[in-house]
């Protein structure tokens, strides 16, 4: 067995155990800072039967008012938080990053709910607060299709009341229920498959795509109905993704959508989340209850009770969902880091390459010179081979003057004559530029995005190359049988490529 082969084998045999251990540790640390053991899951209750004096409702109102009182510089400010979902103009950290029309629709919104719930819990000073859900489709109680009373009560200071909603559903007296065709769930719940091929909607939770996208289509069964239909029917802010999260009922609606994800899984019949690395390893960025930037991967949110410590009132046991064990450690640890923060001593820089890179509508190929000494190259290999260490490519100094409205697929070691393939060994992830917006001016160092590249680097080194490359290709979709790239509306620039070796536990930050 060659040295290279033995390293590969080592990776395969140790990676699964390492990633399993990492998953449990990281989520525990994420939830409570790693200082205490998780308590029994908290229960997100059905709003049915709650009154305005219910402690949950009281806390919800108090939390909303507290968020509204925060300065506009605080990411937890009510409007700023809603802008994470969408906003028609302006820019801010993580604004306009909601995911719709594809298989990350559900996990992105689960994360968005999670951090919102934690913010309300903290700002209302109600540790027992959990988000309630609105089950408008209750088959045993048609009155549940009516917007809950406390949201329709136009009392001065009622933080739950929003006048912009469609009147017939929002009026205090004689409100109309949401129509049965809007709140019907059987079509979605009947789908046996979580996702399906790009361009199709015959699935539970929308199509498979290569990279995150703010909006794309078609929408899958659950996203179509009840999700979209309830948004449009309630109308007003709810009917507009750029404003929807400003309406307090948004959070109960999405809590219900999140609950339906669990309910769908609980039906069995082969239903499961995608057992797919691309889906599982996707990372999204938010802010926690203290306003600090946080990020999570999808694999950290697939089991709500075990990983996020909540269940829905009355729900049955949900089958445990799994992600594929990784040959490599978890990816993308540093997305969203602004500027050139000091490197930890535990990080080891292997490659530091200043470059003037520009991402355009075409393919951008940037040389990544590896250290020339055999020892240094061996260091790269060692980084790949150590399950407790990650090999990370940092793309630094990213600046963009406006949203390019697309993302770039990133490859490491892609041969010059090879076709870019997100399913191939050289693909390391997709480079979004949400975070760079607004940071170019106030942060001259620009934005940093990081990718775990161990597997791709190992593939690149198979050829014993002393140099490799980083290749960027605009994300493409298939239209009429041809791969068509989404033409960026503007170019994106970056100034440095750095390859670092770092401990895996850094990825949870």
């Amino acid at each position: 067995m060659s040295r290279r082969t033995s390293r590969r084998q080592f990776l395969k045999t140790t990676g699964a155990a390492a990633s399993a251990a990492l998953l449990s540790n990281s989520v525990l640390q994420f939830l409570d800072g790693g200082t205490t053991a998780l308590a029994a899951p908290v229960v997100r209750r059905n709003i049915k039967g709650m009154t305005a004096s219910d402690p949950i409702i009281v806390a919800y109102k108090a939390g909303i008012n507290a968020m509204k009182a925060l300065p506009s510089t605080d990411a937890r400010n009510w409007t700023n938080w809603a802008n994470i979902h969408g906003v028609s103009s302006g820019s801010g950290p993580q604004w306009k990053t909601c995911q719709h029309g594809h298989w990350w629709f559900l996990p992105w919104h689960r994360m968005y709910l999670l951090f919102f719930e934690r913010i309300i819990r903290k700002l209302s000073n109600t540790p027992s607060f959990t988000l309630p859900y609105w089950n408008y489709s209750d088959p045993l109680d048609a009155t549940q299709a009516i917007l809950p009373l406390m949201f329709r009560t136009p009392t001065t200071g009622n933080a739950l009341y929003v006048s912009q909603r469609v009147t017939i559903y929002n009026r205090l007296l004689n409100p109309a229920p949401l129509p049965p065709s809007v709140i019907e769930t059987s079509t979605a719940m009947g789908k046996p498959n979580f996702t399906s091929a790009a361009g199709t909607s015959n699935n539970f939770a929308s199509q498979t795509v290569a990279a995150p996208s703010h909006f794309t289509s078609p929408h899958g069964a659950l996203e179509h109905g009840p999700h979209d239909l309830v948004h449009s029917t309630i109308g007003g802010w709810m009917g507009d993704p750029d404003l929807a999260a400003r309406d307090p009922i948004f959070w109960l609606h999405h809590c219900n959508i999140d609950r339906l994800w669990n309910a769908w899984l609980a039906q069995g019949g082969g239903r499961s989340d995608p057992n797919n690395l691309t889906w599982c390893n996707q990372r999204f960025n938010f802010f926690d209850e203290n306003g600090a930037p946080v990020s999570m991967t999808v694999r950290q949110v697939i089991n709500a009770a075990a990983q996020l410590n909540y269940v829905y009132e009355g729900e049955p046991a949900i089958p445990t969902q799994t992600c594929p064990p990784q040959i490599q450690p978890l990816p993308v640890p540093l997305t969203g880091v602004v500027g050139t923060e000091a490197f930890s001593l535990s990080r080891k820089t292997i490659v530091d390459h200043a470059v003037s890179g520009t991402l355009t509508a075409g393919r951008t190929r940037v040389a990544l010179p590896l250290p020339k000494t055999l020892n240094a190259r061996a260091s790269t290999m060692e980084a790949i081979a150590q399950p407790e260490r990650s090999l990370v490519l940092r793309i630094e100094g990213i600046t963009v003057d406006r949203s390019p409205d697309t993302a770039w697929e990133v490859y490491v070691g892609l041969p010059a004559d090879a076709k870019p393939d997100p399913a191939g060994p050289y693909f390391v992830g997709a480079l979004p530029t949400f975070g760079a917006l607004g940071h170019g001016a106030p942060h001259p160092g620009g934005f940093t995005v990081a990718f775990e590249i161990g597997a791709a680097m190992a593939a690149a080194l198979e050829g014993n190359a002393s140099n490799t490359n980083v290749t960027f290709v605009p994300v493409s979709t298939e239209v009429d049988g041809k791969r068509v790239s989404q033409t960026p509306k503007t170019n994106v620039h970056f100034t440095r490529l750095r390859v670092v070796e770092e401990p895996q536990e850094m990825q949870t930050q």
Partner: protein
Amino acid sequence: MRVFVLSAFFAIACSAAGSDGVRTLGVREKRIEIGAAPATITLRVDRASLRGAGGLALRFEGLSVSRRPDTTFRIHLGTSAGEPAGELSLYGVEGENGHAIRDVPVSAAAIESALGNGSSLRVVVTAAPGGDPGQAAFTRLRLIRQ
């Protein structure tokens, strides 16, 4: 003879699996405005193609919104009476204005009922009452199987 040839071509064209992973059973390419007034679109559908695996849906393509609707649109097949066969939401269309696609699942039974003994499927799009129907449009409607 011409009718026969056209019909044969139509059947072949409509039964082929499309590059977007769906099979087109009927198509109408025309810009259709939807808003306060009901819109009626007629598709020619090959009845035989309705039988087969996979779900059926009406695919609205090239959707754009010039004034955002504060309601949904009810999709009736055949006549505009009775319960709708499906419901169309334009939530999020503005995010990909002019390129958005929305699929409305429909049952084979509803289509066969609307077709009767013919091959023309009449699709009626009406704004659900209560909210502002706004102003929107689509450029192609397909009956698909996927």
